[in-house]
Protein backbone atom coordinates (compact mmCIF):
# COMPACT_ATOMS: atom_id res chain seq x y z
CA UNK A 1 0.00 0.00 0.00
CA UNK A 2 1.55 3.35 -0.96
CA UNK A 3 1.09 6.55 1.03
CA UNK A 4 -1.73 7.75 -1.19
CA UNK A 5 -3.78 4.68 -0.37
CA UNK A 6 -3.28 4.94 3.39
CA UNK A 7 -6.67 5.24 5.04
CA UNK A 8 -7.07 8.55 6.89
CA UNK A 9 -7.11 8.46 10.65
CA UNK A 10 -10.52 9.24 12.09
CA UNK A 11 -10.75 12.94 12.84
CA UNK A 12 -13.01 15.93 12.67
CA UNK A 13 -12.50 19.64 12.42
CA UNK A 14 -14.52 22.81 11.99
CA UNK A 15 -14.25 25.20 9.06
CA UNK A 16 -15.37 28.80 8.64
CA UNK A 17 -19.04 29.52 8.07
CA UNK A 18 -20.37 33.04 8.63
CA UNK A 19 -23.57 32.12 10.40
CA UNK A 20 -23.35 28.49 11.42
CA UNK A 21 -20.78 25.74 11.99
CA UNK A 22 -19.35 23.53 9.24
CA UNK A 23 -18.21 20.17 10.59
CA UNK A 24 -15.70 18.21 8.50
CA UNK A 25 -15.03 14.52 8.94
CA UNK A 26 -12.46 11.98 7.78
CA UNK A 27 -12.28 8.30 8.68
CA UNK A 28 -11.02 4.97 7.31
CA UNK A 29 -14.51 3.43 7.36
CA UNK A 30 -18.07 4.67 7.13
CA UNK A 31 -18.81 3.41 10.62
CA UNK A 32 -15.94 5.48 11.98
CA UNK A 33 -17.12 8.48 9.96
CA UNK A 34 -20.48 8.30 11.71
CA UNK A 35 -18.75 7.92 15.09
CA UNK A 36 -16.62 10.96 14.27
CA UNK A 37 -19.75 12.97 13.44
CA UNK A 38 -21.03 12.21 16.94
CA UNK A 39 -17.70 13.14 18.52
CA UNK A 40 -17.58 16.40 16.53
CA UNK A 41 -21.02 17.25 17.84
CA UNK A 42 -19.91 16.44 21.40
CA UNK A 43 -16.88 18.75 21.06
CA UNK A 44 -19.11 21.54 19.83
CA UNK A 45 -21.61 21.08 22.63
CA UNK A 46 -19.18 21.10 25.50
CA UNK A 47 -15.50 21.32 26.41
CA UNK A 48 -16.26 20.54 30.05
CA UNK A 49 -17.40 16.96 29.70
CA UNK A 50 -17.50 14.19 32.27
CA UNK A 51 -16.87 10.47 31.74
CA UNK A 52 -19.97 8.66 30.46
CA UNK A 53 -22.24 7.24 33.11
CA UNK A 54 -25.25 4.97 33.12
CA UNK A 55 -26.28 2.16 30.82
CA UNK A 56 -25.81 2.51 27.07
CA UNK A 57 -28.75 3.84 25.09
CA UNK A 58 -29.68 1.94 21.98
CA UNK A 59 -30.26 4.15 18.94
CA UNK A 60 -31.84 3.13 15.65
CA UNK A 61 -32.12 5.52 12.74
CA UNK A 62 -33.63 4.99 9.31
CA UNK A 63 -33.37 7.41 6.41
CA UNK A 64 -33.94 7.78 2.68
CA UNK A 65 -30.26 7.41 1.76
CA UNK A 66 -26.76 7.51 3.20
CA UNK A 67 -26.45 11.32 3.28
CA UNK A 68 -29.84 11.68 4.95
CA UNK A 69 -28.81 8.98 7.41
CA UNK A 70 -25.89 11.13 8.58
CA UNK A 71 -28.23 14.11 9.10
CA UNK A 72 -30.83 11.99 10.89
CA UNK A 73 -28.16 10.38 13.09
CA UNK A 74 -26.89 13.77 14.19
CA UNK A 75 -30.41 15.07 14.73
CA UNK A 76 -31.13 12.02 16.89
CA UNK A 77 -28.10 12.87 19.04
CA UNK A 78 -29.18 16.54 19.20
CA UNK A 79 -32.66 15.51 20.35
CA UNK A 80 -31.32 13.17 23.04
CA UNK A 81 -28.80 15.76 24.20
CA UNK A 82 -31.52 18.34 24.73
CA UNK A 83 -33.94 15.94 26.38
CA UNK A 84 -31.47 14.18 28.68
CA UNK A 85 -28.99 17.04 29.10
CA UNK A 86 -26.16 14.69 28.21
CA UNK A 87 -23.27 14.90 25.79
CA UNK A 88 -22.69 11.54 24.11
CA UNK A 89 -19.05 10.80 23.44
CA UNK A 90 -18.92 7.03 23.79
CA UNK A 91 -20.38 5.77 20.55
CA UNK A 92 -20.40 2.28 19.13
CA UNK A 93 -21.99 1.72 15.72
CA UNK A 94 -23.23 -1.86 15.73
CA UNK A 95 -24.53 -1.94 12.20
CA UNK A 96 -24.65 0.50 9.33
CA UNK A 97 -26.12 0.31 5.86
CA UNK A 98 -26.99 3.09 3.42
CA UNK A 99 -30.39 3.57 5.03
CA UNK A 100 -30.15 2.19 8.53
CA UNK A 101 -27.97 2.60 11.58
CA UNK A 102 -27.92 0.89 14.96
CA UNK A 103 -25.68 2.26 17.68
CA UNK A 104 -25.10 2.16 21.41
CA UNK A 105 -24.25 5.48 22.97
CA UNK A 106 -23.23 6.68 26.42
CA UNK A 107 -22.76 10.16 27.74
CA UNK A 108 -22.93 12.38 30.80
CA UNK A 109 -24.17 15.78 31.81
CA UNK A 110 -21.29 18.22 31.30
CA UNK A 111 -20.08 20.77 33.83
CA UNK A 112 -20.80 23.47 31.27
CA UNK A 113 -22.19 23.92 27.80
CA UNK A 114 -20.36 25.54 24.92
CA UNK A 115 -22.50 25.92 21.79
CA UNK A 116 -26.23 25.26 21.58
CA UNK A 117 -26.84 23.17 18.45
CA UNK A 118 -30.31 23.41 16.92
CA UNK A 119 -30.05 20.88 14.10
CA UNK A 120 -27.98 19.22 11.40
CA UNK A 121 -28.84 20.40 7.88
CA UNK A 122 -28.70 19.08 4.31
CA UNK A 123 -26.90 22.20 3.15
CA UNK A 124 -23.58 21.34 1.42
CA UNK A 125 -23.93 17.89 2.94
CA UNK A 126 -21.40 15.44 1.62
CA UNK A 127 -20.07 11.95 2.19
CA UNK A 128 -17.34 11.03 -0.27
CA UNK A 129 -15.00 8.13 -0.83
CA UNK A 130 -11.49 9.52 -0.72
CA UNK A 131 -8.51 7.26 -1.29
CA UNK A 132 -8.80 4.38 1.11
CA UNK A 133 -11.28 6.12 3.39
CA UNK A 134 -14.17 8.55 3.60
CA UNK A 135 -14.67 12.24 4.13
CA UNK A 136 -17.81 14.09 5.14
CA UNK A 137 -19.23 17.55 5.69
CA UNK A 138 -22.28 18.67 7.66
CA UNK A 139 -23.47 22.22 8.35
CA UNK A 140 -24.96 22.57 11.82
CA UNK A 141 -27.40 25.31 12.78
CA UNK A 142 -26.14 26.87 16.00
Amino acid at each position, binding site marked *: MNARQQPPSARHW*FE*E*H*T*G*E*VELHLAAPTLKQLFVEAGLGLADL*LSDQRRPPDGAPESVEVE*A*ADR*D*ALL*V*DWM*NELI*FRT*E*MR*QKVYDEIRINSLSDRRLHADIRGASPD*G*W*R*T*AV*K*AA*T*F*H*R*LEIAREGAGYTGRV*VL*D*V
Partner: protein
Amino acid sequence: MAYELKQVGEVQYELGRELRPGMHVPARVFADEKLISQIQRDHSLEQLVNVTSLPGITRAALGMPDMHEGYGFPVGGVAGTLAPDGAISPGGIGFDINCGVRLLVSELRYPEAESVVPTLVHELSRSIPTGYGRHGRISLSSADLDRVLSEGCAYLVREHGLGLEEDLERIESRGSLSGADPSRVSDRAKQRGEDQLGTLGGGNHFLELQRVDAVYDEEAARAMRLGLGQVTVLIHTGSRGLGHQVCTDYVREMDKALARYHFSLPDRQLACAPLSSPEGKDYFAAMCAAANFAWSNRQVLTHRIRETFRRQLGPGPASELRVVYDVAHNIAKLEQFGKHTLCVHRKGATRAFGPSSTEIPAAYRGIGQPIFIPGSMGTSSFVLAGTDASKELSLSSTCHGAGRALSRTAAKKQVVGHELRKQLESQGIIVRCPSNAELAEEAPLAYKDVERVVDVVSRAGIAKKVARLVPRGVLKG
Protein backbone atom coordinates in the same frame (compact mmCIF):
# COMPACT_ATOMS: atom_id res chain seq x y z
CA MET B 1 -17.81 32.26 -6.90
CA ALA B 2 -17.60 36.00 -7.59
CA TYR B 3 -20.82 37.39 -9.01
CA GLU B 4 -21.06 40.47 -11.18
CA LEU B 5 -24.01 42.34 -9.81
CA LYS B 6 -25.83 44.96 -11.81
CA GLN B 7 -26.72 48.09 -9.87
CA VAL B 8 -30.42 48.72 -10.53
CA GLY B 9 -31.10 51.44 -7.97
CA GLU B 10 -29.29 53.69 -5.50
CA VAL B 11 -28.98 50.78 -3.06
CA GLN B 12 -30.23 47.84 -5.13
CA TYR B 13 -28.20 45.25 -6.97
CA GLU B 14 -29.44 42.42 -9.15
CA LEU B 15 -28.40 39.11 -10.66
CA GLY B 16 -30.54 38.42 -13.73
CA ARG B 17 -32.23 35.14 -14.66
CA GLU B 18 -29.69 34.63 -17.43
CA LEU B 19 -27.00 33.94 -14.80
CA ARG B 20 -27.86 30.27 -14.42
CA PRO B 21 -30.39 27.84 -15.84
CA GLY B 22 -33.23 27.07 -13.48
CA MET B 23 -33.61 30.60 -12.12
CA HIS B 24 -37.32 31.47 -12.27
CA VAL B 25 -36.81 35.08 -11.14
CA PRO B 26 -33.87 37.44 -10.58
CA ALA B 27 -32.01 37.73 -7.28
CA ARG B 28 -32.06 41.26 -5.89
CA VAL B 29 -30.09 42.65 -2.95
CA PHE B 30 -30.55 45.87 -1.00
CA ALA B 31 -27.10 47.12 -0.09
CA ASP B 32 -24.57 49.86 -0.59
CA GLU B 33 -21.13 49.36 -2.04
CA LYS B 34 -19.48 48.44 1.26
CA LEU B 35 -22.19 45.99 2.33
CA ILE B 36 -22.18 44.35 -1.11
CA SER B 37 -18.46 43.76 -0.79
CA GLN B 38 -19.01 42.18 2.65
CA ILE B 39 -21.89 40.06 1.32
CA GLN B 40 -19.67 38.78 -1.50
CA ARG B 41 -17.17 37.31 0.95
CA ASP B 42 -19.30 34.27 1.80
CA HIS B 43 -21.78 31.99 0.00
CA SER B 44 -24.86 34.11 0.63
CA LEU B 45 -25.28 35.30 -2.97
CA GLU B 46 -25.02 31.72 -4.22
CA GLN B 47 -27.69 30.77 -1.68
CA LEU B 48 -29.92 33.63 -2.82
CA VAL B 49 -29.51 32.49 -6.43
CA ASN B 50 -30.52 28.98 -5.32
CA VAL B 51 -33.70 30.44 -3.82
CA THR B 52 -34.72 31.73 -7.26
CA SER B 53 -35.27 28.08 -8.25
CA LEU B 54 -38.05 27.52 -5.72
CA PRO B 55 -41.18 26.26 -7.50
CA GLY B 56 -43.77 29.03 -7.73
CA ILE B 57 -41.43 31.85 -6.71
CA THR B 58 -42.55 35.18 -8.08
CA ARG B 59 -41.05 38.65 -8.54
CA ALA B 60 -37.52 38.11 -7.14
CA ALA B 61 -35.51 36.39 -4.43
CA LEU B 62 -34.64 39.28 -2.15
CA GLY B 63 -31.59 39.83 0.01
CA MET B 64 -31.66 42.39 2.80
CA PRO B 65 -28.56 44.48 3.62
CA ASP B 66 -27.77 42.34 6.67
CA MET B 67 -27.65 39.21 4.51
CA HIS B 68 -25.08 36.53 5.30
CA GLU B 69 -24.51 32.86 4.65
CA GLY B 70 -26.96 30.46 6.23
CA TYR B 71 -28.16 27.05 5.02
CA GLY B 72 -30.67 26.73 2.17
CA PHE B 73 -31.80 30.35 2.26
CA PRO B 74 -29.27 33.00 3.22
CA VAL B 75 -30.02 34.74 6.50
CA GLY B 76 -31.68 37.98 5.38
CA GLY B 77 -33.46 36.23 2.52
CA VAL B 78 -37.06 36.80 1.42
CA ALA B 79 -39.08 34.89 -1.18
CA GLY B 80 -42.75 34.91 -2.12
CA THR B 81 -44.32 31.87 -3.78
CA LEU B 82 -47.73 31.95 -5.40
CA ALA B 83 -50.45 30.29 -3.36
CA PRO B 84 -51.97 27.78 -3.48
CA ASP B 85 -49.60 25.62 -5.49
CA GLY B 86 -46.27 27.38 -5.02
CA ALA B 87 -43.76 25.81 -2.68
CA ILE B 88 -43.35 26.19 1.02
CA SER B 89 -39.86 25.37 2.25
CA PRO B 90 -39.11 24.81 5.96
CA GLY B 91 -35.48 25.74 5.23
CA GLY B 92 -36.75 29.12 4.03
CA ILE B 93 -38.02 29.84 7.53
CA GLY B 94 -35.26 28.14 9.50
CA PHE B 95 -35.01 25.94 12.55
CA ASP B 96 -35.77 28.72 15.02
CA ILE B 97 -39.32 29.33 13.81
CA ASN B 98 -40.53 32.82 14.76
CA CYS B 99 -37.26 33.82 16.24
CA GLY B 100 -38.13 37.46 16.75
CA VAL B 101 -37.90 40.58 18.85
CA ARG B 102 -40.23 42.31 21.26
CA LEU B 103 -39.68 45.82 22.61
CA LEU B 104 -41.04 46.94 25.98
CA VAL B 105 -40.99 50.53 27.17
CA SER B 106 -41.03 51.89 30.71
CA GLU B 107 -41.78 55.37 32.07
CA LEU B 108 -38.50 55.01 33.94
CA ARG B 109 -36.08 57.54 32.49
CA TYR B 110 -32.44 58.46 32.59
CA PRO B 111 -30.76 59.99 34.54
CA GLU B 112 -33.00 58.65 37.36
CA ALA B 113 -32.66 55.13 35.92
CA GLU B 114 -28.85 55.17 36.23
CA SER B 115 -28.86 53.99 39.84
CA VAL B 116 -31.43 51.19 39.45
CA VAL B 117 -30.41 49.64 36.13
CA PRO B 118 -27.53 47.57 37.62
CA THR B 119 -29.95 46.03 40.14
CA LEU B 120 -32.55 45.41 37.45
CA VAL B 121 -30.00 43.64 35.24
CA HIS B 122 -28.83 41.53 38.17
CA GLU B 123 -32.37 40.59 39.19
CA LEU B 124 -33.35 39.80 35.60
CA SER B 125 -30.34 37.51 35.32
CA ARG B 126 -31.70 35.62 38.34
CA SER B 127 -35.25 35.30 37.09
CA ILE B 128 -34.75 34.62 33.37
CA PRO B 129 -33.30 31.22 32.44
CA THR B 130 -30.62 31.64 29.77
CA GLY B 131 -28.33 29.31 27.85
CA TYR B 132 -28.57 25.83 26.48
CA GLY B 133 -30.79 23.38 28.30
CA ARG B 134 -32.17 25.84 30.83
CA HIS B 135 -35.77 25.17 31.72
CA GLY B 136 -38.50 27.66 32.50
CA ARG B 137 -40.60 27.81 35.62
CA ILE B 138 -43.73 26.82 33.70
CA SER B 139 -44.23 23.15 33.07
CA LEU B 140 -47.15 22.57 30.75
CA SER B 141 -49.51 19.65 30.69
CA SER B 142 -50.07 18.14 27.28
CA ALA B 143 -53.48 19.86 27.06
CA ASP B 144 -52.00 23.24 28.10
CA LEU B 145 -49.24 22.94 25.54
CA ASP B 146 -51.75 22.20 22.80
CA ARG B 147 -53.66 25.33 23.72
CA VAL B 148 -50.47 27.41 23.63
CA LEU B 149 -49.76 25.95 20.20
CA SER B 150 -53.23 26.60 18.84
CA GLU B 151 -54.09 29.90 20.59
CA GLY B 152 -50.74 31.52 21.35
CA CYS B 153 -50.53 34.56 23.60
CA ALA B 154 -54.30 35.02 24.05
CA TYR B 155 -54.46 31.75 26.00
CA LEU B 156 -51.66 32.81 28.37
CA VAL B 157 -53.12 36.28 28.94
CA ARG B 158 -56.77 35.29 29.34
CA GLU B 159 -56.47 32.02 31.19
CA HIS B 160 -53.17 32.31 33.06
CA GLY B 161 -52.97 36.06 33.66
CA LEU B 162 -49.55 36.21 32.01
CA GLY B 163 -49.84 39.70 30.61
CA LEU B 164 -52.39 42.31 29.65
CA GLU B 165 -55.19 42.26 27.11
CA GLU B 166 -53.63 45.35 25.48
CA ASP B 167 -50.41 43.38 24.87
CA LEU B 168 -52.20 41.26 22.29
CA GLU B 169 -53.01 44.20 20.04
CA ARG B 170 -49.28 45.02 19.83
CA ILE B 171 -47.98 41.67 18.67
CA GLU B 172 -47.67 40.68 15.01
CA SER B 173 -50.79 38.67 14.16
CA ARG B 174 -51.90 39.29 17.77
CA GLY B 175 -49.51 36.54 18.82
CA SER B 176 -51.65 33.83 17.31
CA LEU B 177 -51.76 32.36 13.82
CA SER B 178 -55.12 30.82 13.12
CA GLY B 179 -53.68 28.16 10.82
CA ALA B 180 -52.00 26.41 13.76
CA ASP B 181 -52.77 22.75 14.36
CA PRO B 182 -51.05 21.10 17.35
CA SER B 183 -51.79 17.64 15.93
CA ARG B 184 -49.29 18.41 13.13
CA VAL B 185 -46.53 18.96 15.73
CA SER B 186 -44.67 15.76 16.59
CA ASP B 187 -44.45 14.32 20.09
CA ARG B 188 -40.71 14.89 19.93
CA ALA B 189 -41.19 18.59 19.25
CA LYS B 190 -43.67 18.84 22.12
CA GLN B 191 -41.25 17.04 24.44
CA ARG B 192 -38.52 19.52 23.57
CA GLY B 193 -40.82 22.47 24.23
CA GLU B 194 -42.81 21.36 27.24
CA ASP B 195 -40.64 23.12 29.84
CA GLN B 196 -39.05 25.81 27.67
CA LEU B 197 -41.67 28.57 27.82
CA GLY B 198 -40.12 31.63 29.41
CA THR B 199 -36.52 30.78 28.53
CA LEU B 200 -34.11 32.84 26.48
CA GLY B 201 -31.88 30.10 25.06
CA GLY B 202 -28.30 30.52 23.87
CA GLY B 203 -26.51 31.59 20.70
CA ASN B 204 -27.32 35.13 19.65
CA HIS B 205 -30.44 35.36 21.81
CA PHE B 206 -30.40 38.08 24.41
CA LEU B 207 -32.31 40.45 26.58
CA GLU B 208 -31.13 44.05 26.66
CA LEU B 209 -31.95 47.04 28.84
CA GLN B 210 -31.59 50.20 26.79
CA ARG B 211 -31.94 53.95 26.82
CA VAL B 212 -33.72 55.86 24.05
CA ASP B 213 -30.80 57.88 22.78
CA ALA B 214 -32.12 59.61 19.66
CA VAL B 215 -35.48 60.26 18.05
CA TYR B 216 -35.60 60.77 14.29
CA ASP B 217 -39.37 60.86 13.77
CA GLU B 218 -41.25 62.58 16.59
CA GLU B 219 -44.73 61.59 15.44
CA ALA B 220 -43.88 57.92 15.03
CA ALA B 221 -41.94 57.84 18.31
CA ARG B 222 -44.91 59.42 20.11
CA ALA B 223 -47.26 56.79 18.69
CA MET B 224 -44.85 54.13 19.96
CA ARG B 225 -44.66 55.96 23.34
CA LEU B 226 -40.90 56.35 22.99
CA GLY B 227 -39.19 59.49 24.28
CA LEU B 228 -35.58 60.50 24.87
CA GLY B 229 -34.05 58.96 27.97
CA GLN B 230 -36.71 56.31 28.48
CA VAL B 231 -35.75 52.79 29.48
CA THR B 232 -36.64 50.05 27.01
CA VAL B 233 -36.22 46.27 27.15
CA LEU B 234 -35.53 44.32 23.97
CA ILE B 235 -36.20 40.56 23.99
CA HIS B 236 -34.66 38.42 21.25
CA THR B 237 -35.60 34.75 21.29
CA GLY B 238 -37.76 32.21 19.46
CA SER B 239 -39.53 28.86 19.61
CA ARG B 240 -36.64 27.02 21.29
CA GLY B 241 -36.35 23.25 20.88
CA LEU B 242 -39.97 22.88 19.83
CA GLY B 243 -39.46 24.98 16.71
CA HIS B 244 -36.12 23.34 15.94
CA GLN B 245 -37.75 19.91 15.98
CA VAL B 246 -40.71 21.02 13.82
CA CYS B 247 -38.26 22.18 11.15
CA THR B 248 -36.15 19.01 11.48
CA ASP B 249 -39.25 16.82 11.11
CA TYR B 250 -40.59 18.59 8.03
CA VAL B 251 -37.31 19.08 6.17
CA ARG B 252 -37.07 15.29 6.41
CA GLU B 253 -40.64 14.78 5.19
CA MET B 254 -40.30 17.19 2.30
CA ASP B 255 -36.92 15.81 1.29
CA LYS B 256 -38.61 12.44 0.87
CA ALA B 257 -41.49 13.98 -1.09
CA LEU B 258 -39.39 15.96 -3.61
CA ALA B 259 -39.46 13.26 -6.28
CA ARG B 260 -43.24 12.91 -5.99
CA TYR B 261 -43.66 16.56 -6.97
CA HIS B 262 -40.89 16.40 -9.61
CA PHE B 263 -39.03 19.19 -7.84
CA SER B 264 -35.36 19.54 -8.65
CA LEU B 265 -33.47 21.89 -6.35
CA PRO B 266 -29.87 23.13 -6.26
CA ASP B 267 -29.66 22.60 -2.49
CA ARG B 268 -31.29 19.76 -0.60
CA GLN B 269 -31.89 22.04 2.39
CA LEU B 270 -34.41 23.93 0.22
CA ALA B 271 -36.62 20.81 0.38
CA CYS B 272 -40.18 21.94 -0.19
CA ALA B 273 -43.66 20.88 -1.22
CA PRO B 274 -46.61 22.70 -2.77
CA LEU B 275 -48.46 24.68 -0.12
CA SER B 276 -51.63 22.89 -1.25
CA SER B 277 -50.09 19.40 -0.82
CA PRO B 278 -50.59 17.27 2.31
CA GLU B 279 -46.93 17.87 3.28
CA GLY B 280 -47.26 21.60 2.63
CA LYS B 281 -50.47 21.92 4.62
CA ASP B 282 -49.10 19.87 7.51
CA TYR B 283 -45.91 21.89 7.69
CA PHE B 284 -47.76 25.21 7.52
CA ALA B 285 -50.05 24.12 10.38
CA ALA B 286 -47.07 22.96 12.47
CA MET B 287 -45.07 26.10 11.67
CA CYS B 288 -48.00 28.29 12.75
CA ALA B 289 -48.17 26.31 16.01
CA ALA B 290 -44.42 26.78 16.59
CA ALA B 291 -44.80 30.50 15.82
CA ASN B 292 -47.54 30.70 18.46
CA PHE B 293 -45.18 28.99 20.90
CA ALA B 294 -42.46 31.56 20.17
CA TRP B 295 -44.80 34.52 20.73
CA SER B 296 -45.93 32.82 23.94
CA ASN B 297 -42.31 32.42 25.00
CA ARG B 298 -41.76 36.16 24.59
CA GLN B 299 -45.06 36.76 26.43
CA VAL B 300 -43.92 34.73 29.46
CA LEU B 301 -40.57 36.53 29.41
CA THR B 302 -42.45 39.84 29.35
CA HIS B 303 -44.38 38.73 32.43
CA ARG B 304 -41.14 37.82 34.25
CA ILE B 305 -39.56 41.15 33.34
CA ARG B 306 -42.63 43.01 34.60
CA GLU B 307 -42.49 41.06 37.87
CA THR B 308 -38.84 42.00 38.29
CA PHE B 309 -39.47 45.69 37.56
CA ARG B 310 -42.38 45.75 40.05
CA ARG B 311 -40.35 43.99 42.71
CA GLN B 312 -37.47 46.42 42.37
CA LEU B 313 -39.27 49.68 41.64
CA GLY B 314 -42.57 49.17 43.43
CA PRO B 315 -45.92 49.90 41.84
CA GLY B 316 -46.20 52.94 39.58
CA PRO B 317 -45.63 54.05 35.99
CA ALA B 318 -41.89 53.27 36.07
CA SER B 319 -42.54 49.59 36.57
CA GLU B 320 -45.51 49.32 34.20
CA LEU B 321 -43.82 48.07 31.06
CA ARG B 322 -45.82 48.39 27.87
CA VAL B 323 -45.36 46.34 24.74
CA VAL B 324 -44.35 48.56 21.81
CA TYR B 325 -44.55 45.67 19.34
CA ASP B 326 -43.38 42.13 18.71
CA VAL B 327 -42.16 41.02 15.28
CA ALA B 328 -41.15 37.67 13.84
CA HIS B 329 -38.09 37.36 11.68
CA ASN B 330 -38.15 33.65 10.77
CA ILE B 331 -41.59 32.86 9.41
CA ALA B 332 -43.81 32.24 6.38
CA LYS B 333 -47.02 34.27 6.08
CA LEU B 334 -49.84 34.31 3.56
CA GLU B 335 -50.07 37.89 2.38
CA GLN B 336 -52.09 39.63 -0.30
CA PHE B 337 -50.33 41.38 -3.18
CA GLY B 338 -52.96 42.74 -5.53
CA LYS B 339 -55.08 39.80 -6.63
CA HIS B 340 -52.40 37.28 -5.66
CA THR B 341 -51.89 35.54 -2.33
CA LEU B 342 -48.22 34.88 -1.73
CA CYS B 343 -46.56 32.65 0.80
CA VAL B 344 -43.85 35.07 1.92
CA HIS B 345 -40.85 33.30 3.43
CA ARG B 346 -38.82 35.56 5.70
CA LYS B 347 -35.60 34.03 6.93
CA GLY B 348 -33.81 36.60 9.04
CA ALA B 349 -36.04 39.37 7.72
CA THR B 350 -38.83 41.44 9.24
CA ARG B 351 -42.31 42.24 7.98
CA ALA B 352 -42.56 45.97 7.24
CA PHE B 353 -46.22 46.86 6.70
CA GLY B 354 -46.75 50.51 5.89
CA PRO B 355 -49.01 53.23 7.38
CA SER B 356 -52.01 52.31 5.21
CA SER B 357 -52.08 48.66 6.30
CA THR B 358 -55.23 47.63 8.14
CA GLU B 359 -53.42 44.66 9.65
CA ILE B 360 -51.31 46.70 12.04
CA PRO B 361 -52.52 48.07 15.41
CA ALA B 362 -54.80 51.11 15.19
CA ALA B 363 -52.19 53.18 17.04
CA TYR B 364 -49.69 52.63 14.23
CA ARG B 365 -51.98 53.25 11.26
CA GLY B 366 -50.71 56.34 9.55
CA ILE B 367 -47.28 55.64 11.06
CA GLY B 368 -46.23 52.19 9.88
CA GLN B 369 -45.59 48.92 11.66
CA PRO B 370 -42.80 49.12 14.26
CA ILE B 371 -39.63 47.22 13.35
CA PHE B 372 -36.71 46.59 15.70
CA ILE B 373 -33.18 46.16 14.44
CA PRO B 374 -30.85 44.97 17.17
CA GLY B 375 -27.24 45.96 16.77
CA SER B 376 -24.40 43.77 17.89
CA MET B 377 -23.49 43.62 21.55
CA GLY B 378 -22.49 47.06 22.75
CA THR B 379 -23.77 48.92 19.69
CA SER B 380 -27.04 50.74 19.12
CA SER B 381 -30.32 49.16 18.10
CA PHE B 382 -32.85 50.94 15.93
CA VAL B 383 -36.60 51.35 15.90
CA LEU B 384 -37.97 51.71 12.38
CA ALA B 385 -41.43 51.93 10.85
CA GLY B 386 -42.62 50.05 7.79
CA THR B 387 -43.51 51.89 4.59
CA ASP B 388 -46.23 51.38 1.98
CA ALA B 389 -43.50 51.36 -0.68
CA SER B 390 -42.00 48.19 0.83
CA LYS B 391 -44.94 46.22 -0.53
CA GLU B 392 -43.76 46.58 -4.13
CA LEU B 393 -40.06 46.98 -3.44
CA SER B 394 -39.41 44.15 -0.99
CA LEU B 395 -42.57 42.07 -0.47
CA SER B 396 -43.30 44.18 2.64
CA SER B 397 -40.02 43.13 4.21
CA THR B 398 -36.89 44.69 5.63
CA CYS B 399 -33.72 43.73 7.48
CA HIS B 400 -33.63 42.06 10.91
CA GLY B 401 -30.30 43.00 12.49
CA ALA B 402 -26.73 43.96 11.79
CA GLY B 403 -25.97 40.61 10.16
CA ARG B 404 -22.84 38.60 10.82
CA ALA B 405 -19.71 39.57 8.94
CA LEU B 406 -17.29 37.11 10.59
CA SER B 407 -17.68 33.47 11.57
CA ARG B 408 -17.69 32.64 15.26
CA THR B 409 -14.22 31.12 14.97
CA ALA B 410 -12.84 34.20 13.23
CA ALA B 411 -14.42 36.44 15.87
CA LYS B 412 -12.80 34.44 18.68
CA LYS B 413 -9.41 34.76 16.96
CA GLN B 414 -9.70 38.52 17.00
CA VAL B 415 -11.49 39.16 20.28
CA VAL B 416 -10.67 38.03 23.79
CA GLY B 417 -13.91 37.52 25.69
CA HIS B 418 -12.82 38.84 29.07
CA GLU B 419 -11.26 41.92 27.46
CA LEU B 420 -14.50 42.60 25.58
CA ARG B 421 -16.39 42.26 28.85
CA LYS B 422 -14.12 44.88 30.42
CA GLN B 423 -14.43 47.14 27.40
CA LEU B 424 -18.24 46.98 27.50
CA GLU B 425 -18.22 47.63 31.22
CA SER B 426 -15.97 50.64 30.70
CA GLN B 427 -18.73 51.98 28.40
CA GLY B 428 -21.16 51.56 31.29
CA ILE B 429 -22.79 48.44 29.80
CA ILE B 430 -23.45 45.69 32.31
CA VAL B 431 -22.95 42.24 30.82
CA ARG B 432 -24.36 39.01 32.20
CA CYS B 433 -22.99 36.18 30.07
CA PRO B 434 -21.41 33.18 31.77
CA SER B 435 -19.07 32.31 28.90
CA ASN B 436 -16.28 34.61 27.70
CA ALA B 437 -16.03 32.50 24.52
CA GLU B 438 -19.69 33.09 23.66
CA LEU B 439 -19.25 36.75 24.42
CA ALA B 440 -16.38 36.92 21.93
CA GLU B 441 -18.46 35.16 19.27
CA GLU B 442 -21.01 37.97 19.47
CA ALA B 443 -18.47 40.81 19.56
CA PRO B 444 -19.30 43.95 17.58
CA LEU B 445 -16.56 43.30 15.00
CA ALA B 446 -18.25 39.98 14.11
CA TYR B 447 -21.18 41.98 12.73
CA LYS B 448 -21.79 44.45 9.95
CA ASP B 449 -22.26 48.09 10.84
CA VAL B 450 -25.90 48.29 11.96
CA GLU B 451 -26.08 52.02 11.22
CA ARG B 452 -25.08 51.33 7.61
CA VAL B 453 -27.66 48.53 7.34
CA VAL B 454 -30.41 50.79 8.67
CA ASP B 455 -29.26 53.61 6.40
CA VAL B 456 -29.66 51.31 3.37
CA VAL B 457 -33.23 50.26 4.20
CA SER B 458 -34.08 53.90 4.82
CA ARG B 459 -32.55 55.02 1.50
CA ALA B 460 -34.27 52.13 -0.29
CA GLY B 461 -37.59 53.34 1.12
CA ILE B 462 -38.47 49.99 2.73
CA ALA B 463 -38.45 51.35 6.30
CA LYS B 464 -37.92 54.69 7.98
CA LYS B 465 -35.88 55.53 11.04
CA VAL B 466 -37.82 56.34 14.22
CA ALA B 467 -35.43 56.09 17.16
CA ARG B 468 -32.08 54.81 18.35
CA LEU B 469 -31.60 52.74 21.50
CA VAL B 470 -28.27 52.31 23.28
CA PRO B 471 -27.52 49.29 25.48
CA ARG B 472 -27.12 49.70 29.23
CA GLY B 473 -27.35 46.07 30.33
CA VAL B 474 -27.18 42.77 28.41
CA LEU B 475 -28.27 39.30 29.43
CA LYS B 476 -27.01 36.53 27.18
CA GLY B 477 -27.29 32.78 27.13
